[in-house]
């Protein structure tokens, strides 16, 4: 008995020793900032100046702040348009690559390549392509004597479409890899059995591929939703949040509050609300998507 207990104790000790480096970093860089952020959100005062305790004032100000609501709506809108399109596109690319055609290696590399670029490069590329009058498309059309009638950054709808195109081009490759891993885990005998039963390609996709990819799809949806919530680089670099506030999502606004308005307390409050929203949505999604499988 005693022997057993001391063994268990030793085990815990060893486990703790292995966990310690991670735990220290986890607590320090993850849990502590969340707590600290919440405390900051209860304060008032300019960055660089005196800070005073303000209770929930920042939170009540948020309720009456139009720009908070418009950025939240912009963020949600982006999630609504980006999540389905990235799932469909990622899956489509994965299916193409999985068909074992000639040149698959090239295609796979080509699809994945943009993901390795940093957001600043992505931003420059798409500004270069899309911007009105001196952009690549505008100049090409212009040299053929056609004036580009649409303005890619000039309105709410087009602005978001441009951000969506840039984001898809950038991240679809990563989701393709996830789907591809899922596709390659489906045992071949399922398809063989379906062949014997005389199932067509569509039926195989509908009754074998899709159900088998449920787990991966759940993962992609959750990852994509969270990363869409964190949208910042693309709007900052491509549309600068404009025209006006048309393409300003929440994280973009948080940056402006903190580093343009120097209102750290309010920025922390908005960040904390964003954190709660993301946590809640991830939880719901996880429960919903996982309970089915």
């Amino acid at each position: 008995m005693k022997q057993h207990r001391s063994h268990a104790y030793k085990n815990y000790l060893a486990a703790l020793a292995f966990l310690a480096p991670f735990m220290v970093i986890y607590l320090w860089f993850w849990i502590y900032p969340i707590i600290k952020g919440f405390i900051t959100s209860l304060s008032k005062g300019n960055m660089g100046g005196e800070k005073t305790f303000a209770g929930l004032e920042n939170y009540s100000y948020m309720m009456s702040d139009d720009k908070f609501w418009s950025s939240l709506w912009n963020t949600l809108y982006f999630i609504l348009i980006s999540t389905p399109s990235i799932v469909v596109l990622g899956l489509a690319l994965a299916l193409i690559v999985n068909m074992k055609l000639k040149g698959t290696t090239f295609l796979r590399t080509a699809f994945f390549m943009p993901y390795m670029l940093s957001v600043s490069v992505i931003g420059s590329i798409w500004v270069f392509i899309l911007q009105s009058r001196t952009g690549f498309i505008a100049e090409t059309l212009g040299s053929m004597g056609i004036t580009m009638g649409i303005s890619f950054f000039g309105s709410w709808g087009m602005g978001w479409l441009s951000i969506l195109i840039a984001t898809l081009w950038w991240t679809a490759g990563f989701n393709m890899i996830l789907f591809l891993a899922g596709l390659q885990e489906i045992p071949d005998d399922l398809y063989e059995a379906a062949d014997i039963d005389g199932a067509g390609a569509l039926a195989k996709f509908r009754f074998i591929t899709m159900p088998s990819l449920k787990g991966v799809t759940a993962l992609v949806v959750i990852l994509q939703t969270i990363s869409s919530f964190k949208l910042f680089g693309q709007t900052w670099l491509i549309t600068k949040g404009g025209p006006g506030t048309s393409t300003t999502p929440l994280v973009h606004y948080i940056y402006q509050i903190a580093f343009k308005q120097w209102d750290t307390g309010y920025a922390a409050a908005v960040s904390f609300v964003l954190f709660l929203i993301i946590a809640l949505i991830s939880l719901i999604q996880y429960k919903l998507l996982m309970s089915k499988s």
Partner: protein
Amino acid sequence: MKKTMHQLVSVLMILSLVLAGCSKSGDSKPSNENASNSEGKSSSGKTIELNYWVPFSGSDGEFMEDMVNTFNKSQSEINVKFMNNNWDNYYPKLLSSLQAKAAPDVAVAHVSHLAELTPTGMIEPLDDLAKDAGLDWSTFGKNQEEAIIRDGKHYAVPLDTHAVVMYYNKKFLGDAGLLNADGTIKMDPGVEGFTKMLETLKAKLPGDVSPMIIGSNNVFTYWIWYALVQQQGGTYFKDGQPTIDTPEGKKAMELLKSWLDKGLMLPDIGDNSYDIFKTSKAAVTFTGVWATGNFEKEKSLDFAAVAFPQLFDQPAAWGDSHTLIVPKQSDRDKEIAAVKFANWLAEHGAMWAKAGHVPSKPSVVESEEYKALPYRSGYADVMKIVKYMPDTPKLSAVNDAVLESLVQINYGQKTIDEGLKEAQDKADKLMSR
């Protein structure tokens, strides 16, 4: 025994990981590059090392680096270490460094940002230091000197004035018969004269050349609106409160909008007004003086630059100044060296003027070296008519809020009345925070 060995090895490995982590963070400690911790040799009477931060990620950076190198070669007492920073996050970085007491020995700051930096209590007032460093405030332009005085004390050394001025394509204006023999624009004074000049351009120039161009989704819209308000004697802030929704503000916006509506100015050009003017697709542009260095690289472009035109009752232009601030530190010798360096930069403003900016010392503006530079002297007078923005730590916040609404007006998302009212509300709200 073997098991203990195993455990020992694993613990050692974990420890080494932790230690590796520590050493890395130690290496990248920002304080290593900074004033507070760096060991100056000032006390031993040899070279004083100064860390110097600037936000010139654009083309100005090269000119400043040249100046620093020239300064370092010109004497052996002070050695300046130049560090260029990305413009976008320069102020967050500078402000945090001031708060963390890890600031550089000397740094560039815009006049419009002083109000954000001074509440840290880390910006040294320079009056005593200036005496020891041999800096004479009367050698600076009056407008420029007044802009850096807070509560009767000098808080920075003005380096330059940069303003929005007018550039025009001499070939296009010549073709349209709008140039005088001396190369100046032939037009009647005031709004009517200017608008008529644009209309003539529209009538006489090829269809793909826009008479005028200004950035439509960037800060230029705000800067030009601001200048037009100031020209009418209007205010932006009055008694510390924003005055956006005013008759002057409305009139200024109506003018800009009418140019757009009449097709005298291109809508929706985003950020690329420079490129459009540079490639001879526009005849006139209002843009910052820093564009001079950019435009003169284009051989096919025959242009001239003049001060922002007077369209209303009085001359005025939007402008700002780069200044040098000295963060507080215990080593007074370093602070004096920093002021000496700042004064040297201002005195050698003709070198800095290559980047397009107007020097802060009238003696430099009068110098042969400055006058020999092409284009620059055409708009040097703008330093006298620049109306600096109000001194409040909320300035950037209010400017951004106003800009958003003005852009929405330009893009037709809001009427002028709605836009200005909204801007006023937002500004009031920001000030109440």
